Protein backbone atom coordinates (compact mmCIF):
# COMPACT_ATOMS: atom_id res chain seq x y z
CA UNK A 1 0.00 0.00 0.00
CA UNK A 2 2.81 2.40 0.91
CA UNK A 3 4.48 1.55 -2.37
CA UNK A 4 1.27 2.22 -4.20
CA UNK A 5 0.89 5.66 -2.63
CA UNK A 6 4.49 6.47 -3.53
CA UNK A 7 3.85 5.41 -7.09
CA UNK A 8 0.67 7.43 -7.42
CA UNK A 9 2.36 10.49 -5.90
CA UNK A 10 5.05 10.31 -8.56
CA UNK A 11 2.37 10.02 -11.23
CA UNK A 12 0.67 13.17 -9.98
CA UNK A 13 4.00 15.03 -10.12
CA UNK A 14 4.25 14.07 -13.80
CA UNK A 15 0.75 15.30 -14.50
CA UNK A 16 0.89 18.54 -12.57
CA UNK A 17 4.28 19.49 -13.99
CA UNK A 18 3.28 18.97 -17.58
CA UNK A 19 1.48 21.94 -19.13
CA UNK A 20 0.01 19.87 -21.94
CA UNK A 21 -1.51 17.35 -19.53
CA UNK A 22 -2.89 20.10 -17.36
CA UNK A 23 -4.50 21.75 -20.34
CA UNK A 24 -6.11 18.57 -21.61
CA UNK A 25 -7.24 17.66 -18.13
CA UNK A 26 -8.71 20.88 -16.93
CA UNK A 27 -8.80 23.50 -19.68
CA UNK A 28 -10.38 21.36 -22.35
CA UNK A 29 -13.55 20.13 -20.64
CA UNK A 30 -14.53 23.57 -19.45
CA UNK A 31 -13.66 25.21 -22.76
CA UNK A 32 -15.63 22.63 -24.72
CA UNK A 33 -18.73 22.82 -22.59
CA UNK A 34 -18.71 26.61 -22.66
CA UNK A 35 -18.12 26.67 -26.40
CA UNK A 36 -20.93 24.28 -27.22
CA UNK A 37 -23.19 25.76 -24.63
CA UNK A 38 -22.94 29.38 -25.58
CA UNK A 39 -22.74 28.83 -29.31
CA UNK A 40 -26.30 27.66 -28.99
CA UNK A 41 -28.46 30.71 -28.48
CA UNK A 42 -32.15 30.99 -27.76
CA UNK A 43 -32.85 34.45 -29.14
CA UNK A 44 -34.62 34.89 -32.44
CA UNK A 45 -35.24 38.10 -34.29
CA UNK A 46 -36.52 38.71 -37.80
CA UNK A 47 -35.97 35.13 -38.82
CA UNK A 48 -36.54 34.53 -42.52
CA UNK A 49 -39.39 32.14 -43.20
CA UNK A 50 -41.36 31.00 -46.23
CA UNK A 51 -45.06 30.39 -46.56
CA UNK A 52 -46.81 27.69 -48.53
CA UNK A 53 -50.46 28.62 -48.51
CA UNK A 54 -52.44 25.90 -50.26
CA UNK A 55 -55.76 27.33 -49.20
CA UNK A 56 -55.34 31.04 -49.96
CA UNK A 57 -58.46 32.14 -48.09
CA UNK A 58 -59.23 35.02 -45.77
CA UNK A 59 -58.38 33.11 -42.66
CA UNK A 60 -54.93 32.08 -43.79
CA UNK A 61 -54.24 35.59 -45.00
CA UNK A 62 -55.13 36.94 -41.58
CA UNK A 63 -52.76 34.57 -39.85
CA UNK A 64 -49.99 35.34 -42.31
CA UNK A 65 -50.39 39.04 -41.69
CA UNK A 66 -50.18 38.47 -38.00
CA UNK A 67 -46.98 36.51 -38.33
CA UNK A 68 -45.49 39.03 -40.68
CA UNK A 69 -46.37 41.81 -38.25
CA UNK A 70 -44.42 40.20 -35.43
CA UNK A 71 -40.85 41.29 -34.98
CA UNK A 72 -39.71 37.69 -34.81
CA UNK A 73 -40.40 36.69 -38.39
CA UNK A 74 -39.82 38.08 -41.81
CA UNK A 75 -41.63 36.43 -44.68
CA UNK A 76 -38.90 36.02 -47.20
CA UNK A 77 -41.02 34.39 -49.88
CA UNK A 78 -44.20 32.57 -50.67
CA UNK A 79 -43.83 29.26 -52.41
CA UNK A 80 -46.34 27.34 -54.39
CA UNK A 81 -45.47 23.70 -53.93
CA UNK A 82 -43.95 21.28 -51.42
CA UNK A 83 -41.20 20.44 -53.88
CA UNK A 84 -39.62 23.83 -53.28
CA UNK A 85 -39.16 23.29 -49.57
CA UNK A 86 -36.06 21.13 -49.82
CA UNK A 87 -34.31 23.50 -52.20
CA UNK A 88 -34.94 26.70 -50.24
CA UNK A 89 -33.66 25.00 -47.10
CA UNK A 90 -30.58 23.91 -48.98
CA UNK A 91 -29.95 27.46 -50.11
CA UNK A 92 -30.18 28.46 -46.48
CA UNK A 93 -32.46 31.39 -47.24
CA UNK A 94 -35.09 30.52 -44.68
CA UNK A 95 -35.11 28.84 -41.32
CA UNK A 96 -38.69 27.62 -41.47
CA UNK A 97 -41.61 26.99 -43.80
CA UNK A 98 -45.25 27.29 -42.70
CA UNK A 99 -47.62 25.10 -44.66
CA UNK A 100 -51.35 25.82 -44.52
CA UNK A 101 -53.43 22.85 -45.58
CA UNK A 102 -56.02 22.86 -48.35
CA UNK A 103 -59.48 24.14 -47.48
CA UNK A 104 -58.29 25.78 -44.32
CA UNK A 105 -61.43 27.84 -43.66
CA UNK A 106 -63.74 25.04 -44.67
CA UNK A 107 -62.04 22.62 -42.32
CA UNK A 108 -62.30 25.11 -39.50
CA UNK A 109 -65.98 25.51 -40.07
CA UNK A 110 -66.93 21.91 -40.68
CA UNK A 111 -64.46 20.02 -38.45
CA UNK A 112 -63.68 22.80 -36.01
CA UNK A 113 -60.03 22.33 -36.68
CA UNK A 114 -57.42 23.04 -39.32
CA UNK A 115 -53.75 22.26 -39.66
CA UNK A 116 -50.62 24.34 -40.01
CA UNK A 117 -47.40 22.50 -40.53
CA UNK A 118 -44.21 24.10 -39.23
CA UNK A 119 -41.14 22.73 -40.97
CA UNK A 120 -37.87 23.92 -39.49
CA UNK A 121 -34.24 23.65 -40.45
CA UNK A 122 -32.87 22.00 -37.34
CA UNK A 123 -29.18 22.29 -38.07
CA UNK A 124 -29.33 24.87 -35.34
CA UNK A 125 -31.58 22.97 -33.02
CA UNK A 126 -32.30 25.59 -30.45
CA UNK A 127 -33.39 28.09 -33.05
CA UNK A 128 -35.62 25.48 -34.64
CA UNK A 129 -37.19 24.81 -31.30
CA UNK A 130 -37.72 28.46 -30.54
CA UNK A 131 -39.26 29.13 -33.96
CA UNK A 132 -41.79 26.38 -33.40
CA UNK A 133 -42.67 27.75 -29.99
CA UNK A 134 -43.13 31.29 -31.29
CA UNK A 135 -45.30 30.20 -34.22
CA UNK A 136 -47.39 28.18 -31.80
CA UNK A 137 -47.75 31.15 -29.52
CA UNK A 138 -48.89 33.40 -32.34
CA UNK A 139 -51.43 30.85 -33.56
CA UNK A 140 -52.76 30.24 -30.07
CA UNK A 141 -53.07 33.91 -29.46
CA UNK A 142 -55.00 34.20 -32.68
CA UNK A 143 -57.43 31.37 -31.88
CA UNK A 144 -58.05 32.81 -28.46
CA UNK A 145 -58.95 36.18 -29.88
CA UNK A 146 -61.42 34.61 -32.26
CA UNK A 147 -62.93 32.23 -29.74
CA UNK A 148 -63.57 35.18 -27.46
CA UNK A 149 -65.70 36.83 -30.11
CA UNK A 150 -68.46 34.28 -29.52
CA UNK A 151 -67.99 32.41 -32.73
CA UNK A 152 -67.97 28.61 -32.48
CA UNK A 153 -64.75 27.48 -30.80
CA UNK A 154 -62.18 25.96 -33.04
CA UNK A 155 -58.62 24.86 -33.05
CA UNK A 156 -55.63 25.36 -35.24
CA UNK A 157 -53.34 22.40 -34.93
CA UNK A 158 -49.66 22.75 -35.56
CA UNK A 159 -47.59 19.88 -36.74
CA UNK A 160 -43.89 20.17 -36.36
CA UNK A 161 -41.40 18.67 -38.67
CA UNK A 162 -37.62 18.98 -38.34
CA UNK A 163 -35.23 18.95 -41.20
CA UNK A 164 -31.60 17.76 -40.99
CA UNK A 165 -31.49 17.14 -37.29
CA UNK A 166 -34.56 15.17 -36.38
CA UNK A 167 -33.15 14.16 -32.99
CA UNK A 168 -33.07 17.84 -32.12
CA UNK A 169 -29.58 18.09 -30.75
CA UNK A 170 -29.05 20.85 -28.34
CA UNK A 171 -27.00 21.59 -25.30
CA UNK A 172 -28.74 18.61 -23.72
CA UNK A 173 -27.15 16.27 -26.17
CA UNK A 174 -23.86 18.11 -26.24
CA UNK A 175 -23.27 17.66 -22.55
CA UNK A 176 -23.29 13.85 -22.77
CA UNK A 177 -21.27 14.07 -25.97
CA UNK A 178 -18.61 16.33 -24.53
CA UNK A 179 -18.46 14.21 -21.41
CA UNK A 180 -17.86 11.11 -23.51
CA UNK A 181 -15.16 12.74 -25.61
CA UNK A 182 -13.37 14.14 -22.57
CA UNK A 183 -13.48 10.87 -20.67
CA UNK A 184 -12.05 9.09 -23.71
CA UNK A 185 -9.37 11.72 -24.08
CA UNK A 186 -8.34 11.71 -20.45
CA UNK A 187 -8.71 8.05 -19.71
CA UNK A 188 -7.62 6.41 -22.92
CA UNK A 189 -5.27 8.86 -24.57
CA UNK A 190 -3.59 10.25 -21.48
CA UNK A 191 -2.98 6.84 -19.91
CA UNK A 192 -1.67 5.35 -23.10
CA UNK A 193 0.70 8.30 -23.48
CA UNK A 194 1.81 8.17 -19.88
CA UNK A 195 2.57 4.44 -20.07
CA UNK A 196 4.41 4.67 -23.40
CA UNK A 197 6.34 7.62 -22.06
CA UNK A 198 7.99 5.32 -19.53
CA UNK A 199 8.78 2.87 -22.29
CA UNK A 200 10.21 5.57 -24.49
CA UNK A 201 12.36 7.07 -21.74
CA UNK A 202 13.56 3.66 -20.57
CA UNK A 203 12.19 4.03 -17.05
CA UNK A 204 9.74 1.19 -17.68
CA UNK A 205 12.66 -1.25 -17.61
CA UNK A 206 13.76 0.08 -14.26
CA UNK A 207 10.25 -0.36 -12.91
CA UNK A 208 10.08 -3.92 -14.23
CA UNK A 209 13.43 -4.79 -12.64
CA UNK A 210 12.10 -3.53 -9.29
CA UNK A 211 10.09 -5.85 -7.03
CA UNK A 212 6.88 -4.26 -8.32
CA UNK A 213 5.03 -6.67 -10.54
CA UNK A 214 3.73 -5.50 -13.92
CA UNK A 215 0.15 -5.38 -12.67
CA UNK A 216 1.13 -3.03 -9.83
CA UNK A 217 2.98 -0.81 -12.28
CA UNK A 218 -0.06 -0.53 -14.53
CA UNK A 219 -2.49 0.03 -11.66
CA UNK A 220 -0.23 2.72 -10.25
CA UNK A 221 -0.13 4.47 -13.59
CA UNK A 222 -3.84 4.19 -14.20
CA UNK A 223 -5.16 5.16 -10.79
CA UNK A 224 -4.52 8.93 -11.00
CA UNK A 225 -6.41 9.04 -14.25
CA UNK A 226 -9.44 7.29 -12.75
CA UNK A 227 -9.42 9.93 -10.07
CA UNK A 228 -9.00 12.83 -12.51
CA UNK A 229 -11.64 11.43 -14.89
CA UNK A 230 -14.16 11.28 -12.07
CA UNK A 231 -13.43 14.91 -11.23
CA UNK A 232 -13.79 15.83 -14.88
CA UNK A 233 -17.08 14.02 -15.30
CA UNK A 234 -18.38 15.78 -12.20
CA UNK A 235 -17.29 19.19 -13.47
CA UNK A 236 -19.00 18.60 -16.82
CA UNK A 237 -22.25 17.43 -15.26
CA UNK A 238 -22.25 20.31 -12.79
CA UNK A 239 -21.65 22.85 -15.57
CA UNK A 240 -24.37 21.21 -17.67
CA UNK A 241 -26.85 21.37 -14.83
CA UNK A 242 -26.11 24.75 -13.31
CA UNK A 243 -25.04 26.77 -16.32
CA UNK A 244 -27.19 25.25 -19.04
CA UNK A 245 -30.12 23.89 -17.11
CA UNK A 246 -29.59 20.31 -18.15
CA UNK A 247 -31.87 18.06 -16.13
CA UNK A 248 -30.86 14.93 -14.25
CA UNK A 249 -34.14 13.06 -14.24
CA UNK A 250 -32.69 9.73 -13.16
CA UNK A 251 -30.59 8.60 -10.23
CA UNK A 252 -27.29 10.38 -9.70
CA UNK A 253 -25.89 7.20 -8.22
CA UNK A 254 -26.67 5.28 -11.40
CA UNK A 255 -25.14 8.09 -13.46
CA UNK A 256 -21.98 7.89 -11.34
CA UNK A 257 -21.85 4.11 -11.66
CA UNK A 258 -22.24 4.20 -15.45
CA UNK A 259 -19.63 6.96 -15.74
CA UNK A 260 -17.11 4.99 -13.71
CA UNK A 261 -17.84 1.95 -15.85
CA UNK A 262 -17.12 3.97 -18.99
CA UNK A 263 -13.96 5.41 -17.44
CA UNK A 264 -12.76 1.87 -16.87
CA UNK A 265 -13.66 0.94 -20.45
CA UNK A 266 -11.61 3.87 -21.70
CA UNK A 267 -8.70 3.05 -19.38
CA UNK A 268 -8.59 -0.53 -20.59
CA UNK A 269 -8.48 0.80 -24.15
CA UNK A 270 -5.65 3.10 -23.10
CA UNK A 271 -3.69 0.21 -21.65
CA UNK A 272 -4.33 -1.81 -24.79
CA UNK A 273 -3.00 1.03 -26.94
CA UNK A 274 0.09 1.35 -24.76
CA UNK A 275 0.87 -2.33 -25.35
CA UNK A 276 0.71 -1.70 -29.08
CA UNK A 277 3.00 1.30 -29.21
CA UNK A 278 6.53 2.09 -28.15
CA UNK A 279 6.48 5.85 -28.50
CA UNK A 280 4.27 8.60 -27.18
CA UNK A 281 3.75 9.79 -30.72
CA UNK A 282 2.35 6.44 -31.85
CA UNK A 283 0.16 6.19 -28.78
CA UNK A 284 -1.25 9.62 -29.48
CA UNK A 285 -1.87 8.85 -33.15
CA UNK A 286 -3.60 5.55 -32.38
CA UNK A 287 -5.70 7.25 -29.72
CA UNK A 288 -6.73 10.08 -32.00
CA UNK A 289 -7.40 8.02 -35.11
CA UNK A 290 -8.60 4.84 -33.46
CA UNK A 291 -10.60 6.34 -30.63
CA UNK A 292 -11.38 10.02 -30.91
CA UNK A 293 -12.42 9.95 -34.54
CA UNK A 294 -14.91 7.10 -34.14
CA UNK A 295 -16.16 8.66 -30.92
CA UNK A 296 -16.85 11.93 -32.64
CA UNK A 297 -18.22 10.52 -35.88
CA UNK A 298 -19.87 7.24 -35.00
CA UNK A 299 -21.18 7.72 -31.49
CA UNK A 300 -24.12 9.86 -32.49
CA UNK A 301 -22.54 12.78 -30.67
CA UNK A 302 -22.51 15.14 -33.63
CA UNK A 303 -24.04 13.28 -36.53
CA UNK A 304 -27.30 11.44 -35.96
CA UNK A 305 -26.77 7.72 -36.38
CA UNK A 306 -30.18 7.16 -37.93
CA UNK A 307 -29.24 9.18 -41.00
CA UNK A 308 -26.01 7.27 -41.62
CA UNK A 309 -25.45 4.62 -44.26
CA UNK A 310 -26.28 1.16 -42.96
CA UNK A 311 -22.68 -0.14 -42.85
CA UNK A 312 -21.67 2.77 -40.62
CA UNK A 313 -24.67 2.17 -38.41
CA UNK A 314 -23.57 -1.43 -37.99
CA UNK A 315 -19.98 -0.41 -37.23
CA UNK A 316 -21.17 2.11 -34.67
CA UNK A 317 -22.26 -0.80 -32.49
CA UNK A 318 -18.68 -1.65 -31.62
CA UNK A 319 -17.97 1.88 -30.39
CA UNK A 320 -18.26 1.90 -26.60
CA UNK A 321 -18.97 5.64 -26.68
CA UNK A 322 -22.21 5.05 -28.57
CA UNK A 323 -23.59 2.92 -25.76
CA UNK A 324 -22.40 5.30 -23.09
CA UNK A 325 -24.10 8.25 -24.79
CA UNK A 326 -27.34 6.28 -25.02
CA UNK A 327 -27.04 5.43 -21.33
CA UNK A 328 -26.37 8.91 -19.98
CA UNK A 329 -28.96 10.51 -22.21
CA UNK A 330 -31.49 8.01 -20.95
CA UNK A 331 -30.56 8.68 -17.34
CA UNK A 332 -30.30 12.45 -17.55
CA UNK A 333 -33.09 13.28 -19.96
CA UNK A 334 -35.58 10.45 -19.53
CA UNK A 335 -34.92 9.41 -15.96
CA UNK A 336 -34.22 5.83 -16.99
CA UNK A 337 -33.47 3.29 -14.29
CA UNK A 338 -31.20 0.29 -14.59
CA UNK A 339 -34.12 -1.90 -15.75
CA UNK A 340 -34.30 0.18 -18.90
CA UNK A 341 -30.61 0.44 -19.69
CA UNK A 342 -29.36 -2.94 -18.45
CA UNK A 343 -28.72 -4.11 -21.98
CA UNK A 344 -26.46 -1.18 -22.86
CA UNK A 345 -24.74 -1.51 -19.49
CA UNK A 346 -24.06 -5.18 -20.10
CA UNK A 347 -22.62 -4.39 -23.52
CA UNK A 348 -20.24 -1.87 -21.95
CA UNK A 349 -19.21 -4.33 -19.24
CA UNK A 350 -18.61 -6.99 -21.88
CA UNK A 351 -16.47 -4.67 -23.98
CA UNK A 352 -14.45 -3.62 -20.95
CA UNK A 353 -13.72 -7.21 -19.94
CA UNK A 354 -12.72 -7.98 -23.50
CA UNK A 355 -10.24 -5.08 -23.65
CA UNK A 356 -8.79 -5.94 -20.25
CA UNK A 357 -8.22 -9.58 -21.15
CA UNK A 358 -6.73 -8.57 -24.49
CA UNK A 359 -4.33 -6.06 -22.96
CA UNK A 360 -3.20 -8.50 -20.27
CA UNK A 361 -2.39 -11.00 -23.02
CA UNK A 362 -0.58 -8.42 -25.12
CA UNK A 363 1.25 -7.02 -22.12
CA UNK A 364 2.68 -10.44 -21.28
CA UNK A 365 3.93 -10.91 -24.81
CA UNK A 366 5.67 -7.54 -24.74
CA UNK A 367 7.69 -8.49 -21.71
CA UNK A 368 9.31 -11.43 -23.46
Amino acid sequence: MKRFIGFVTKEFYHIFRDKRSMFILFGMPIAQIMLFGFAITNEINNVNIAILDKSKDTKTQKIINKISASKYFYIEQEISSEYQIESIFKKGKVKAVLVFENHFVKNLQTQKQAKVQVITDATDPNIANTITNYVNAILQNHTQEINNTNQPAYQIQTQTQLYYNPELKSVFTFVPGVMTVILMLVSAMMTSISITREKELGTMEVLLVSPLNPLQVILGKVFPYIFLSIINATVIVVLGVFVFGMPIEGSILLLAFESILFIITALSLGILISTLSNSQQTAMMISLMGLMLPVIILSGFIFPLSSMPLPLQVISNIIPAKWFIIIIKAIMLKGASIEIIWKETLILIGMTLFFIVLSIKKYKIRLE
Partner: protein
Amino acid sequence: MSQEKIIEVKNLSKKFGSFTAVDNISFDVYKGEIFGFLGANGAGKTTAMKMLIGISRPTSGEVTVAGYDVKTAAEMVKKSIGYMSQRFSMYDDLTIKENITFFGGIYGLSRNKIKEKTAQLVSELGLEDAVDKLVGDLPLGWKQKLSFSVALLHEPKIVFLDEPTGGVDPITRRQFWEMIYAEAHKGTTIFVTTHYMDEAEYCDRVSIMVEGHIEALDTPKNLKQQFNVESMNDVFLKLARNVE
Protein backbone atom coordinates in the same frame (compact mmCIF):
# COMPACT_ATOMS: atom_id res chain seq x y z
CA MET B 1 38.25 -12.43 -4.35
CA SER B 2 36.04 -15.37 -3.48
CA GLN B 3 35.41 -18.26 -5.80
CA GLU B 4 31.72 -18.32 -4.95
CA LYS B 5 29.66 -18.03 -8.14
CA ILE B 6 26.97 -15.37 -7.94
CA ILE B 7 25.91 -15.42 -11.60
CA GLU B 8 25.89 -18.60 -13.69
CA VAL B 9 25.03 -18.48 -17.37
CA LYS B 10 24.76 -21.67 -19.42
CA ASN B 11 24.20 -21.81 -23.18
CA LEU B 12 22.19 -18.62 -23.22
CA SER B 13 20.70 -17.54 -26.58
CA LYS B 14 18.30 -14.89 -27.77
CA LYS B 15 16.79 -14.79 -31.22
CA PHE B 16 14.78 -11.93 -32.70
CA GLY B 17 13.05 -13.69 -35.56
CA SER B 18 15.81 -15.26 -37.61
CA PHE B 19 18.47 -12.92 -36.18
CA THR B 20 20.52 -14.29 -33.29
CA ALA B 21 21.50 -11.41 -31.01
CA VAL B 22 23.03 -13.61 -28.31
CA ASP B 23 24.47 -16.90 -29.48
CA ASN B 24 24.93 -19.65 -26.95
CA ILE B 25 27.04 -17.84 -24.34
CA SER B 26 28.21 -19.41 -21.05
CA PHE B 27 30.14 -17.75 -18.22
CA ASP B 28 30.23 -17.33 -14.44
CA VAL B 29 30.66 -14.21 -12.33
CA TYR B 30 32.21 -14.47 -8.87
CA LYS B 31 30.97 -12.77 -5.78
CA GLY B 32 32.49 -9.33 -5.21
CA GLU B 33 34.25 -8.97 -8.55
CA ILE B 34 33.99 -6.21 -11.12
CA PHE B 35 33.00 -8.06 -14.24
CA GLY B 36 33.44 -6.13 -17.48
CA PHE B 37 31.09 -7.11 -20.26
CA LEU B 38 32.71 -5.68 -23.37
CA GLY B 39 31.70 -5.53 -26.98
CA ALA B 40 31.24 -3.19 -29.91
CA ASN B 41 27.93 -1.52 -30.71
CA GLY B 42 25.31 -4.14 -31.43
CA ALA B 43 27.37 -7.04 -30.09
CA GLY B 44 24.48 -8.12 -27.88
CA LYS B 45 25.54 -6.79 -24.47
CA THR B 46 22.26 -5.14 -23.57
CA THR B 47 20.27 -8.08 -24.87
CA ALA B 48 22.27 -10.49 -22.71
CA MET B 49 22.03 -8.26 -19.65
CA LYS B 50 18.26 -7.97 -19.98
CA MET B 51 18.00 -11.73 -19.85
CA LEU B 52 20.14 -11.83 -16.71
CA ILE B 53 17.90 -9.36 -14.89
CA GLY B 54 14.69 -11.05 -15.98
CA ILE B 55 13.09 -8.45 -18.25
CA SER B 56 13.70 -10.43 -21.41
CA ARG B 57 12.97 -14.11 -21.80
CA PRO B 58 15.83 -16.23 -23.20
CA THR B 59 15.16 -18.23 -26.35
CA SER B 60 17.15 -20.99 -24.70
CA GLY B 61 19.65 -21.47 -21.88
CA GLU B 62 19.86 -21.23 -18.09
CA VAL B 63 20.58 -18.23 -15.90
CA THR B 64 21.08 -18.28 -12.14
CA VAL B 65 21.53 -14.99 -10.30
CA ALA B 66 22.27 -14.78 -6.56
CA GLY B 67 21.38 -18.44 -6.29
CA TYR B 68 17.94 -18.14 -7.90
CA ASP B 69 16.84 -19.35 -11.30
CA VAL B 70 15.73 -16.26 -13.24
CA LYS B 71 13.06 -18.25 -15.04
CA THR B 72 11.32 -19.60 -11.95
CA ALA B 73 12.27 -17.21 -9.14
CA ALA B 74 12.38 -13.84 -10.86
CA GLU B 75 10.92 -12.13 -7.78
CA MET B 76 13.81 -13.26 -5.58
CA VAL B 77 16.30 -12.24 -8.23
CA LYS B 78 14.78 -8.75 -8.47
CA LYS B 79 15.24 -8.19 -4.74
CA SER B 80 18.94 -9.05 -4.97
CA ILE B 81 19.87 -6.80 -7.86
CA GLY B 82 20.18 -3.17 -8.80
CA TYR B 83 20.04 -1.96 -12.40
CA MET B 84 21.12 1.13 -14.23
CA SER B 85 19.86 1.00 -17.78
CA GLN B 86 21.69 2.21 -20.85
CA ARG B 87 19.14 4.93 -21.24
CA PHE B 88 18.86 7.39 -18.39
CA SER B 89 16.78 5.71 -15.73
CA MET B 90 15.39 8.47 -13.56
CA TYR B 91 12.58 10.98 -13.99
CA ASP B 92 13.65 14.34 -15.38
CA ASP B 93 10.53 16.09 -14.14
CA LEU B 94 11.06 15.00 -10.54
CA THR B 95 13.55 16.56 -8.14
CA ILE B 96 16.53 14.62 -6.81
CA LYS B 97 14.74 14.09 -3.53
CA GLU B 98 11.52 12.97 -5.20
CA ASN B 99 13.39 10.50 -7.38
CA ILE B 100 15.19 9.00 -4.40
CA THR B 101 11.95 8.83 -2.43
CA PHE B 102 10.17 7.14 -5.31
CA PHE B 103 12.81 4.51 -6.02
CA GLY B 104 13.37 3.86 -2.33
CA GLY B 105 9.61 3.47 -2.02
CA ILE B 106 9.18 0.88 -4.75
CA TYR B 107 11.93 -1.19 -3.12
CA GLY B 108 9.96 -1.03 0.11
CA LEU B 109 12.41 1.04 2.16
CA SER B 110 10.87 2.67 5.23
CA ARG B 111 10.40 6.41 5.34
CA ASN B 112 13.19 6.83 7.87
CA LYS B 113 15.53 4.68 5.87
CA ILE B 114 14.79 6.77 2.77
CA LYS B 115 15.52 9.99 4.68
CA GLU B 116 18.77 8.60 5.98
CA LYS B 117 19.79 7.33 2.55
CA THR B 118 18.90 10.61 0.86
CA ALA B 119 21.04 12.59 3.28
CA GLN B 120 23.95 10.20 2.93
CA LEU B 121 23.70 10.04 -0.83
CA VAL B 122 23.51 13.77 -1.51
CA SER B 123 26.39 14.51 0.82
CA GLU B 124 28.53 11.84 -0.85
CA LEU B 125 27.77 13.32 -4.25
CA GLY B 126 28.07 16.90 -3.03
CA LEU B 127 24.52 17.65 -4.17
CA GLU B 128 23.24 19.17 -0.89
CA ASP B 129 22.23 22.40 -2.60
CA ALA B 130 20.49 20.64 -5.47
CA VAL B 131 18.15 18.20 -3.67
CA ASP B 132 15.11 20.20 -4.69
CA LYS B 133 16.25 20.74 -8.24
CA LEU B 134 14.68 18.85 -11.10
CA VAL B 135 16.91 16.01 -12.22
CA GLY B 136 16.42 17.16 -15.80
CA ASP B 137 18.39 20.32 -15.02
CA LEU B 138 21.50 18.44 -13.85
CA PRO B 139 24.55 17.91 -16.08
CA LEU B 140 24.76 14.41 -17.58
CA GLY B 141 27.70 13.36 -15.41
CA TRP B 142 25.80 14.11 -12.22
CA LYS B 143 22.75 12.34 -13.52
CA GLN B 144 24.80 9.20 -14.13
CA LYS B 145 26.37 9.27 -10.69
CA LEU B 146 22.99 9.87 -9.11
CA SER B 147 21.50 7.04 -11.13
CA PHE B 148 24.21 4.70 -9.89
CA SER B 149 23.60 5.67 -6.27
CA VAL B 150 19.87 5.17 -6.70
CA ALA B 151 20.46 1.69 -8.17
CA LEU B 152 22.28 0.92 -4.90
CA LEU B 153 19.62 2.35 -2.56
CA HIS B 154 18.28 -1.03 -1.47
CA GLU B 155 21.78 -2.43 -1.00
CA PRO B 156 21.63 -5.12 -3.68
CA LYS B 157 24.10 -8.00 -3.84
CA ILE B 158 24.76 -7.40 -7.51
CA VAL B 159 24.44 -4.25 -9.54
CA PHE B 160 24.08 -4.30 -13.33
CA LEU B 161 25.36 -1.20 -15.11
CA ASP B 162 24.69 -0.85 -18.83
CA GLU B 163 27.19 1.62 -20.30
CA PRO B 164 27.05 3.84 -17.24
CA THR B 165 29.67 6.25 -18.57
CA GLY B 166 28.31 6.64 -22.09
CA GLY B 167 28.76 10.19 -23.33
CA VAL B 168 30.41 11.73 -20.26
CA ASP B 169 33.81 13.43 -20.03
CA PRO B 170 36.97 11.54 -18.95
CA ILE B 171 37.15 13.23 -15.54
CA THR B 172 33.61 12.26 -14.66
CA ARG B 173 34.31 8.75 -15.95
CA ARG B 174 37.25 8.49 -13.59
CA GLN B 175 35.09 9.70 -10.69
CA PHE B 176 32.42 7.21 -11.67
CA TRP B 177 34.90 4.37 -11.59
CA GLU B 178 36.02 5.48 -8.15
CA MET B 179 32.43 5.08 -7.02
CA ILE B 180 32.35 1.62 -8.58
CA TYR B 181 35.54 0.66 -6.76
CA ALA B 182 34.16 1.93 -3.46
CA GLU B 183 31.03 -0.13 -3.91
CA ALA B 184 32.94 -3.25 -4.95
CA HIS B 185 35.06 -2.78 -1.86
CA LYS B 186 31.92 -3.19 0.25
CA GLY B 187 31.44 -6.61 -1.34
CA THR B 188 28.89 -5.74 -4.00
CA THR B 189 29.33 -7.59 -7.28
CA ILE B 190 29.51 -5.25 -10.28
CA PHE B 191 28.44 -6.36 -13.74
CA VAL B 192 29.26 -3.54 -16.12
CA THR B 193 29.09 -3.16 -19.90
CA THR B 194 31.17 -0.63 -21.75
CA HIS B 195 32.80 -0.07 -25.05
CA TYR B 196 35.51 2.16 -23.67
CA MET B 197 38.49 -0.18 -23.73
CA ASP B 198 40.47 1.87 -21.19
CA GLU B 199 37.71 1.12 -18.68
CA ALA B 200 38.32 -2.57 -19.24
CA GLU B 201 41.63 -2.14 -17.45
CA TYR B 202 39.73 -1.31 -14.23
CA CYS B 203 37.83 -4.60 -14.22
CA ASP B 204 38.82 -7.74 -12.36
CA ARG B 205 37.83 -9.88 -15.34
CA VAL B 206 36.41 -9.03 -18.72
CA SER B 207 34.52 -10.92 -21.37
CA ILE B 208 34.64 -9.67 -24.93
CA MET B 209 31.56 -10.17 -27.00
CA VAL B 210 31.60 -10.09 -30.79
CA GLU B 211 28.42 -10.57 -32.78
CA GLY B 212 26.59 -12.47 -30.07
CA HIS B 213 29.52 -14.75 -29.10
CA ILE B 214 31.92 -14.46 -26.18
CA GLU B 215 35.30 -14.49 -27.90
CA ALA B 216 37.52 -14.07 -24.85
CA LEU B 217 37.13 -14.10 -21.06
CA ASP B 218 39.93 -13.53 -18.55
CA THR B 219 41.68 -10.91 -16.44
CA PRO B 220 42.90 -7.91 -18.45
CA LYS B 221 46.48 -8.90 -17.61
CA ASN B 222 46.11 -12.44 -18.95
CA LEU B 223 44.32 -11.28 -22.07
CA LYS B 224 47.07 -8.81 -22.93
CA GLN B 225 49.63 -11.55 -22.38
CA GLN B 226 47.69 -14.05 -24.44
CA PHE B 227 47.40 -11.69 -27.40
CA ASN B 228 50.85 -10.30 -26.80
CA VAL B 229 49.81 -6.63 -26.82
CA GLU B 230 50.12 -3.56 -24.60
CA SER B 231 46.53 -2.48 -24.09
CA MET B 232 43.01 -3.85 -23.95
CA ASN B 233 42.23 -1.78 -27.00
CA ASP B 234 44.73 -3.85 -29.00
CA VAL B 235 43.26 -7.06 -27.61
CA PHE B 236 39.94 -5.93 -28.86
CA LEU B 237 41.23 -4.98 -32.31
CA LYS B 238 42.96 -8.33 -32.72
CA LEU B 239 39.80 -10.17 -31.75
CA ALA B 240 37.64 -8.20 -34.13
CA ARG B 241 40.09 -8.90 -36.93
CA ASN B 242 40.11 -12.63 -36.18
CA VAL B 243 36.34 -12.80 -36.44
CA GLU B 244 36.40 -11.20 -39.87
